[in-house]
């Protein structure tokens, strides 16, 4: 890359993180740019295929329960979103029914990397803000899609489920956490009945503290009004752009 004063793209690059002003080797990209791209793609692929380190999460969050979806490995998980939304039948007995306001679920989703980097700080910050709420034991879920929280919340009898889940990695950010909030969780809940806070990560995304502030407020409002989704979004005045609506995420 030429020094900034000679690079006509320097100023324009401040306006976008798109890969503009690359050089050329004939018609092709230069080797530095090829390797940059391959490295970013490798990080994203590794995030998709990484295994969730459940032991480390449990050590940081004592008392957490562990379940898995009906998708038994990553390949099945990627091919069968329906199985990733269903709790494996044998996990039902690990979730004792109780009288709970809410349950926090940590799911690997499409980026275990995002969960390992961001889920514990978000969960801890959130727990510190939920005084007076009757909380079920925290649940760690593997091969999880967003809607797996519905089965978990229903089994525990929780009025509200909070799912902290790894978002589909992009080339720029492969460790972004999404948070989905669902009132009265049950199988078949439409995505329009959820609220989402996305882009929780350390590369210019939302911080754990800010996400927890927003989430604690939404949780109390959801319990008070008895709803989540479009109705709550309008009431809160929140407009989260790019809230991971891409097919395959939920």
């Amino acid at each position, binding site marked *: 890359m030429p020094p900034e004063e*000679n690079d*006509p*793209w320097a*100023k*324009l*690059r401040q*306006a*976008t*993180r*798109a*890969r*503009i*002003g*690359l*050089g*050329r080797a004939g*018609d*092709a*990209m230069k080797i530095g*740019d090829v390797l940059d*791209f*391959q490295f*970013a*793609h490798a990080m*994203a*692929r590794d*995030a*998709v295929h990484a295994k969730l380190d459940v032991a480390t999460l449990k050590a940081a969050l004592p008392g957490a329960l562990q379940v898995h979806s009906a998708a038994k490995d990553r390949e099945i998980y*990627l*091919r*069968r*979103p*329906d199985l990733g939304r269903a709790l494996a039948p044998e996990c039902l007995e690990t979730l004792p029914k109780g009288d709970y306001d809410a349950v926090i679920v940590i799911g690997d989703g*499409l980026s275990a990397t995002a969960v390992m980097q961001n889920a514990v700080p978000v969960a801890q910050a959130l727990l510190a803000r939920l005084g007076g709420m009757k909380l079920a034991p925290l649940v760690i879920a593997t091969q999880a899609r967003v809607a797996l929280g519905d089965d978990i919340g229903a089994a525990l009898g929780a009025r509200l489920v909070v799912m902290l889940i790894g978002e*589909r*990695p*992009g*080339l*720029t950010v*492969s460790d972004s956490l999404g948070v989905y909030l669902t009132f009265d969780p049950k199988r078949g809940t439409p995505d329009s009945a959820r609220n989402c806070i996305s882009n929780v990560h350390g590369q210019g995304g939302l911080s754990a503290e800010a996400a927890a502030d927003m989430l604690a407020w939404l949780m109390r409002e959801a319990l008070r009004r008895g709803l989540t989704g479009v109705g709550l979004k309008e009431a809160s005045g929140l407009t989260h*752009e*790019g809230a991971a609506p*891409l*097919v*395959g995420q939920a």
Partner: protein
Amino acid sequence: MGHFAHAFRGESFRFPDLKTVLAKASAKRSGDELAGLAAASDAERVAARAVLADLPLKMFLEEPLIPYETDEVTRLIFDKHDAVAFKPVAHMTVGQFRDWLLSYEADAAALAALAPGLMPEMAAAASKLMRNQDLIAVARKCRVVKAFRNTIGLEGRLSSRLQPNHPTDDLKGIAASTLDGLLYGTGDAVIGINPATDSVQNCISLLSMLDELRARYEIPTQTCVLTHVTNSIEVMNAGGAVDLVFQSIAGSEAANAGFGINLGILREAYEASQSLKRGTIGQDTMYFETGQGAALSAGAHFGLDQQTIEARAYAVAREFSPLLVNTVVGFIGPEYLYDGKQIIRAGLEDHFCGKLLGISMGCDVCYTNHAEADQDDMDTLMTLLTVAGVSFVIAVPGADDVMLNYQSLSYHDILYLRSSFGARPAPEFEDWLEKMEMLDRHGRMRLPGPQNKAQRRLLEARNAA
């Protein structure tokens, strides 16, 4: 109707109906497996193909795969079917039709004359009996030419959509990506933005910026903000600079309802855009995107395999003489197309079916990070599609779409396709590149750097702004 059966080496295979034959004859893909429609074994797949090869093409005219009474796409397909155009192939089986498509007799003129006589299901059925090379060889013979401010689809030409997306729709960021793309000679199909915020006000700002840029440099191309069609109608009513009206479409009425559209809404938008008369050499004003898996993800596939119902979307497109249609082939995710092999096959099928049905077919050669695919697979698909005569492909800076978080082609890739296959941009756009002194004496895009006059001119103006 009875059932269909085929015996092979003592084993017998039975299929209850036509749509099961089609589904099981499809090349293996994860979306049909997800839907529970795929062949249970490779042998069953080939048996279904053998059954399909012997079925009369006419059967599709006798048995709607989705009922006529309840689906307006089926009604469109049947009501607009041209029996006279169909006549040359009306007596054929699907297998004979596949052989005829490959024959020397089926030249560009014969194929163009046939298009109105073909139903999408016939094109899909033939494609299931074709290898990748057949899909390429036949598509290559089809000519579909459309025009707005330039001409898309001429022989020996490859156009490109310049896609300057930005995660927050920052106007300066979008302008930067657009200028970058122009310096690679991309953007003759359209300069088209997927907006991060799908509001009317935001669309108007984006369109004004693009229109001003296009007018200032007198670029013979069209611009588009890929917002919902109902927003485009509002923007046109407000006097916004709409060249092309965009919409995602699918192959059943219910799947289109999932997109918040129907044929009536598309008709209204089409007529509004026609009345603006913004085209200079043509008035093809529509731009559609499609993709295998869209109907299944909306739960609106009615037991049809994803490739057959995808082809039905092209009948919806065809009704409005679109300037551009592209499949977003690798975007929808691995639950529909699992890996590079499935994405490549689907891209060739979609292009073939679109061209055979007479639409101006392009492709977003792309993949997501959770698919088993990489840039080598995209190199293969873009190369095959260029050989197949694809009307246009999509390009973004460095192959990285920073708004939609997936990988399409890079601006560089367009240069590779142009020089490796002699595929030139639309003629009017090529003249503009010449006028702007962007081409060297070999007709190649000049290298970037201080010696590049066009770069200086475009960037200095922008940096001063």
